[in-house]
């Protein structure tokens, strides 16, 4: 695990970077290896230690954290164990919210990225800045303002009612929809920018060729554009979906925090009243394992694409 990747396959073809893969990856391995993998390895160890009351750990092996996650022994811990649904439900809920937010980001983000990529080259930079400028304002403040807008008697509802589109206020605050909106708003540029980076490279001659063959715009989009810009879409989805899984600001402020999400559940274990570090570590390990499996499946499915 330690160290760099040695250059195992010196290429006869002399392809530029094959021989310096090691040096190119060295900074990544050193920085993430030391400052993330080591600390997280420590957390993996924590997840199988005995919890110390009020945070911290005793250096004594215990599977109590995983037991708590998977097995339900009743409120007082004296019933025969059955499968614990509490945390699986929390996971499922978070995954669903994150997926909806990702879909929303893609639906809005892809056309936006396309639009930017088709502007004259010297204005694209300005458009990118336009997308990122709002993110100079702290997430907390942005979320609070979003809540202000979608409140029962807030501007959005008043505008809709004023226009005669609805009779009573749409109850948005403290709903799942508000959470999805909040997540969408939190991570939109993380979809737009990678997709833009991929679309900007797209060669419109392909589209023209397709048009010459009487393919409609939408068929061209589906059959030709999407496969080519797929890496950008996948990157965007990863950057929106994974952080959304652990997010807790939007769920807390917009969703009313009535139910735990993965983010708030883990947060409570470390800096909340529950103070159970091994359990927090265990939940994180389970979450990471799930995401890692999904990611490696993705890597395998794209690996067959040859050079990539």
């Amino acid at each position, binding site marked *: 695990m330690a160290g760099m*990747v040695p250059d*195992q*396959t010196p290429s006869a073809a002399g*392809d530029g*970077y094959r021989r*310096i*893969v090691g040096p*190119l*990856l060295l*900074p*990544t391995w050193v*920085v*993430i290896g030391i*400052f*993330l993998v080591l*600390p*997280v390895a*420590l957390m993996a160890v924590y997840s199988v230690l005995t919890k110390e009351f009020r945070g911290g750990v005793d250096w004594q092996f215990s599977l109590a954290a995983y037991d708590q996650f998977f097995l339900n022994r009743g409120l007082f811990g004296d019933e025969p164990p059955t499968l614990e649904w509490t945390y699986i439900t929390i996971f499922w809920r978070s995954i669903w919210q994150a997926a909806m937010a990702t879909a929303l980001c893609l639906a809005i983000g892809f056309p*936006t990225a*396309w639009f930017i990529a088709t502007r004259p*080259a010297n204005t*694209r*930079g*300005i458009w990118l*800045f336009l997308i*990122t400028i*709002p*993110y*100079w304002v*702290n997430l*907390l403040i942005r979320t*609070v*303002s979003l809540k*202000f*807008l979608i409140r029962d008697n807030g501007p959005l509802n008043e505008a809709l009612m004023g226009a005669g589109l609805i009779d009573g206020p749409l109850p948005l605050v403290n709903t799942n929809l508000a959470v999805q909106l909040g997540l969408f708003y939190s991570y939109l*540029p*993380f979809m*737009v920018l*990678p997709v833009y*980076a*991929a679309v*900007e*490279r797209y060669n419109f001659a392909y*589209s*023209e060729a397709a*048009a010459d063959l009487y393919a409609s*715009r939408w068929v*061209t989009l589906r059959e030709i554009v999407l496969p*080519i810009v797929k890496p*950008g879409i996948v*990157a965007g989805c*990863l*950057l929106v979906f*994974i952080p959304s899984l652990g997010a807790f600001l939007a769920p807390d402020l917009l969703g009313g925090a009535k139910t735990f999400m993965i983010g708030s559940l883990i947060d409570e274990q*470390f800096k909340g009243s529950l103070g159970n570090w091994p359990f*927090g570590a265990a939940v*994180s390990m389970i979450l990471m394992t799930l995401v890692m499996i999904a990611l*490696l499946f993705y*890597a395998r499915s794209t690996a067959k694409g040859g*050079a990539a």
Partner: protein
Amino acid sequence: MKGVRHYPGFLAITILCLVVLYAPLLVIMAYSFNGSTSITTWGGFSLHWYVDVFTGAEAARFGQAAWNSLTIAIIAATASTAIATAAAVAMIRGGTFRGKRATFALINMPLMVPEIVTAVATLIFFAMIGLTTGYLTILIAHITFCIPFAYLPIAARLQGIEGHYEQAARDLYASRWQAFRLILLPLMAPGVVSGYLLAFIISLDDFIITNFVKGAGMETLPTAIFGSVKQGIKPNIMAISTLMLVVSILFVTLSYLINRKGRRAP
């Protein structure tokens, strides 16, 4: 003609996107001029909170916090983008090598670890190796978690660039470095810019990790803002946020002017 570039409805969606992005900012700007101490009820127009930002008792701390946030974000985004660019070239152009998939997982790891876990684990780790928390520890942590945010757009971009451009350059006796600098880097530029911007905003906005790895007297804007919620958010935060927007717009205008002067596309 632009025909094939045009999709009906995309302009409308882009406008919708901008409206959604900017509508909350209008609220923030409006309430920065609120005469009352509330962020939900209007108490008349006032410049009180701007005066407060510059001359209030907390002015020096907020100023210092904003300065820390900006410098950390710039340094962290620059460093992580450089690291990520090198990694993307190796991953996409390096052919197959042992440990490639492990490397892919490693690069994305900062994304996968829940922030609070990174925060606590990193602090424990820093304490173990005897590193005192402060500016440097925040910077190290930020560079680390910014890497995937810079890497993913760059790698996505790189996957769309065929190898034959550089091959042609190499055939014309360009060195590897020349081929990279003159051919590949300009082709990658939109990916690098996207990655840099994402790394910048993710660093500028980070609270959870910073909150743990910061040292005594060291404050960033998010930690200062989150810290103040115990007393309730006041319009002074709205004024600070508005000022940050002004700074960002100054940045953009400046870069636009520089680019135009150099007659180069940004």
